[in-house]
């Protein structure tokens, strides 16, 4: 044991290892919320198996007074409740850390690690003595470790009791047992003086006007506020909770006040092919429509995506990325669908893609996605990932513009139709590459025949080369013209002028920002650009050209973002350096920091020797 270590306040990581299906998720969430309510920012990561019951699962809570958004890569307090993962848990603890385990069955070999503190609490025997029913013994053990951790890190117990009261508001008879269980763990630490006060939480005021929310909940809510009325889906991890959210808030706020009828329609399809077809059919018929899925679903939907692109039907595909290829690791995260969403389907197809970085952006970009889809009459992809979608993030309060009106794009009404000689579906009347659509059922004059086969600008079938080419050339210009209307890149300049730059998208953001802050402390200055959409804005290319060394950080094996930049901009290949992490865990800043540091040192050494 090492005691000669300074106390860490509001800057450490608690990791809890349990067996999945034992009800630990709500206990872990309670622990995290208690810290959040003490005004201290937190980062929560659920690292769970593709399984319902019996396999190892972990929950990581980073306490970060400075409000960093990513993981640190450390584990300072390991609560190890699953004998199956004891060895892995023990290995994962950072030097000077604490291991808490259920000492009902003592494990003396844990003492082999002299650089950590081991705290054994006989949680099972304590709970077995207090609770009768087998299931409640399991559940209460979770609350008991919450109490123990609370004692060790100095949590405000009144906040924990309030949270228990809120959690069981509708099942009040469960409250006393939960409070008692928390007390068992708390008292054991206090009475046995096991608190070494190495890692403490001290109240701050850095979480007011902040919420803890996952990206799928936020995106589903965004779809409700955007006025989406139709969603079709096929269940797939990690996107399922997005439709759960849409469904939940529609059920609360989208009922006819008098008749209680639904002002929305959700259909669970038989597969993703069908989900894509339904959403497209609804969009063609004038509903704001979407389908949430993950990469495997995009593979299946690709046929319809190409049809929607060519026939110019605007709808939103939410892709919550998980680890591929094939079934891959369904409960792990990656940014591996950058390529497929940019070009999904056969033939020449290019899409609009949005890259939200956190749940706050999930809320706003969900609405933007619908506006873009309808304005440009084309598929729009919302490319999130499991880390953003399923983990709780601390973000600013969600805000909504009171004056928002959906951008439905160009829809020709009966009145407008009356003023023209003849309606043609794909004529570029306004010279902005966007034709006028009509809705079925509105006017005999507006009828047209939607087809995925070759068509001319009038919407008629064609096999004439020049007529075919005219339409697909316009489609390319239409796609390019969307760039200024999409969320623009966010560029963060370092304190000093620098030749080094980092480019990233989505959930890499927190880790990249923290890595840059740390490098700056070491005198290494790096500019940072977070790209937020495809087609790339002109500023993307400018930013790369303005720097000599541009590190492209992304979470996939094949450098998909870098290759997309090389294909779609004039960024010179020799300026780009790829940094990739693709092992499936949410990115931590130490990985990014170390990779950048290594590259920059090597580069500076080369410069000196040259």
């Amino acid at each position, binding site marked *: 044991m090492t005691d000669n270590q300074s106390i860490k306040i509001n800057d450490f990581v608690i990791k809890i290892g349990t067996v999945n299906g034992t009800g630990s998720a709500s206990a872990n969430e309670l622990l995290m919320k208690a810290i959040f*309510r003490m005004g201290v920012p937190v980062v929560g990561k659920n690292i769970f198996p593709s399984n319902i019951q019996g396999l190892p699962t972990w929950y990581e809570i980073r306490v970060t007074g400075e409000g960093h958004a990513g993981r640190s890569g450390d584990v300072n307090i390991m609560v190890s409740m699953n004998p199956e993962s004891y060895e892995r848990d023990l290995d994962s603890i950072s030097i000077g850390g604490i291991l808490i385990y259920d000492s009902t069955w003592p494990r003396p070999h844990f003492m082999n690690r002299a650089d950590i503190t081991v705290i054994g609490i006989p949680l099972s025997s304590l709970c077995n003595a207090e609770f009768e029913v087998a299931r409640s013994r399991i559940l209460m053990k979770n609350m008991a470790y919450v109490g123990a951790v609370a004692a060790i890190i100095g949590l405000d117990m009144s906040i924990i009791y309030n949270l228990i009261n809120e959690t069981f508001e509708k099942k009040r008879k469960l409250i006393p047992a939960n409070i008692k269980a928390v007390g068992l763990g708390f008292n054991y630490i206090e009475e046995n003086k096991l608190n070494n006060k190495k890692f403490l939480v001290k109240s701050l005021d850095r979480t007011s006007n902040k919420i803890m929310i996952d990206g799928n909940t936020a995106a589903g*809510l965004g779809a409700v506020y955007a*006025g989406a009325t139709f969603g079709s889906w096929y269940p797939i991890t990690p996107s399922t909770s997005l439709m759960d959210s849409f469904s939940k808030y529609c059920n609360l706020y989208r009922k006819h006040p008098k008749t209680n009828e639904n*002002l929305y329609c959700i259909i669970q399809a038989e597969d993703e092919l*069908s989900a894509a*077809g339904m959403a497209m059919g609804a969009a063609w018929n004038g*509903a704001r429509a979407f389908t949430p899925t993950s990469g495997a679903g995009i593979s299946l939907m690709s046929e319809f995506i190409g049809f929607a692109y060519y026939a110019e039907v605007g709808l939103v595909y939410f892709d919550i990325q998980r680890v591929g290829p094939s079934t891959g690791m369904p409960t792990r995260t990656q940014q591996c669908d950058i390529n497929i969403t940019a070009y999904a389907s056969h033939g020449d197809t290019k899409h609009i893609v949005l890259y939200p970085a956190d749940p706050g952006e999930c809320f706003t970009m969900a609405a933007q996605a619908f506006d873009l889809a309808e304005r440009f009459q084309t598929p729009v992809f919302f490319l999130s990932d499991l880390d953003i979608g399923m983990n709780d993030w601390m973000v600013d309060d969600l805000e909504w513009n009171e004056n928002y009106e959906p951008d439905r794009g160009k829809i020709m009404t009966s009145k407008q139709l009356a003023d023209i000689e003849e309606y043609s579906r794909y004529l570029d009347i306004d010279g902005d590459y966007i034709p006028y659509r009509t809705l079925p*059922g509105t006017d005999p004059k507006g009828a047209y*025949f939607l087809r995925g086969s070759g068509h001319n600008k009038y919407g008629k079938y064609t096999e004439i080369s020049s007529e075919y080419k005219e339409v697909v050339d316009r489609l390319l210009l239409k796609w390019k013209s969307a760039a200024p209307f999409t969320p623009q890149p966010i560029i963060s300049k370092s304190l000093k002028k620098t030749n080094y730059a980092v480019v990233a998208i989505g959930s890499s953001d927190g880790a990249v920002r923290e890595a840059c802050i740390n490098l700056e402390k070491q005198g290494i200055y790096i500019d940072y650009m977070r790209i937020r959409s495809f087609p790339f804005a002109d500023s993307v290319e400018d930013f790369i050209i303005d720097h000599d060394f541009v590190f492209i950080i992304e979470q996939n094996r094949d450098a998909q973002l870098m290759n997309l930049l090389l294909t779609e901009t004039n960024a010179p290949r020799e300026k780009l350096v790829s940094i990739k992490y693709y092992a499936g865990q949410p990115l931590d800043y130490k990985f990014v920091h170390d990779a950048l540091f290594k590259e920059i040192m090597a580069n500076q050494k080369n410069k000196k020797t040259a």
Partner: protein
Amino acid sequence: MTSFIKPRISRKSAPKNKIGLTRQDYDGTMSTLCAGCGHDSVTAALARAFFELSIKPHKVAKISGIGCSSKTTSYLLKEAHGANTVHGRMPSFATGAMAANTSLTYFGVSGDGDSLSIGIGQMIHAMRRNANMLYVLENNGVYGLTKGQFSASADIGSVAKKGTVNDQPPIDPCALGLSVGASFIARSFSGDREQLVKLIRAGLMHKGFALIDVISPCVSFNDHKGSTKSYEHTYKYYSKLVHADYIPPAEEIKAAYDVGESMPIVLHDGGEIILRKLDPSYDPSDRSSAFSKITNNNTKEIATGLIYINKNLSDMAEQNNLQERPLNQIPYKELNPGLDNLKEIQKSFR
């Protein structure tokens, strides 16, 4: 699928329907199918039924997949929006379209390849959902556009044009529909326009999924000796089970059916589907007897007419608790939960 404009010949004396339109007003572009194709007769029967029911053409949405059959939606109702989707995926597209606006009349045209092979999953699930549409399956036992391969509806022993004999059992869309709970199942023949028009009328007015399997011979690849989907074979074994027609609410039922044999089914709009049993022992509301009748292997008889009907199943719109007002016509202010609710929602995130 070239969109030739069909020459319009107006006859002043052409009869008009209740909304003042002639039968020609229900035409589309000129057919590009082979001369004598069964599908063209189906197109004509569909146009006739829409005309007789006085449905405004632009209040119809016509949806299809890929194949010879799926081209035909272009050949009628030029004032209706049409969608020629992807192969085997007409049902999902139609389902989504219906959800967006339940006030239109939807019909889909598909073929045996489109429905029974590549799209069998979608067809089954559209039947399960009881999506309110007419689904016409133009069944010729063969792939026409790719020149003569057997389809999944080819009978055992049927001979292809090049001499190959099919040895796999056929998928019967009507038997399939019965097993998954379709609410209106009929079979007809492109060569019997009188029966077909009436079945289409009934199918269009039925609230829920109405499947009509229409034997529609392919003159180019499956109309030879040895084929079981040829005109000759179909005429030979054609038999009628139950005659069905739709009678609108105001119209007096003129046909004098024997009381014991006719069976009126009152619909939601007050109209009736009148059934006339040609086989007195047959009950089209009895699912198991319907199944046993059409799967009877002891006869070559092709049982046609209304095979099964169940008007008591809720349709997709009811299952989803949808209003009569279409989703695509609800103003945004009714869809937006508002700022106060956003604040309220966020209380649970702290």
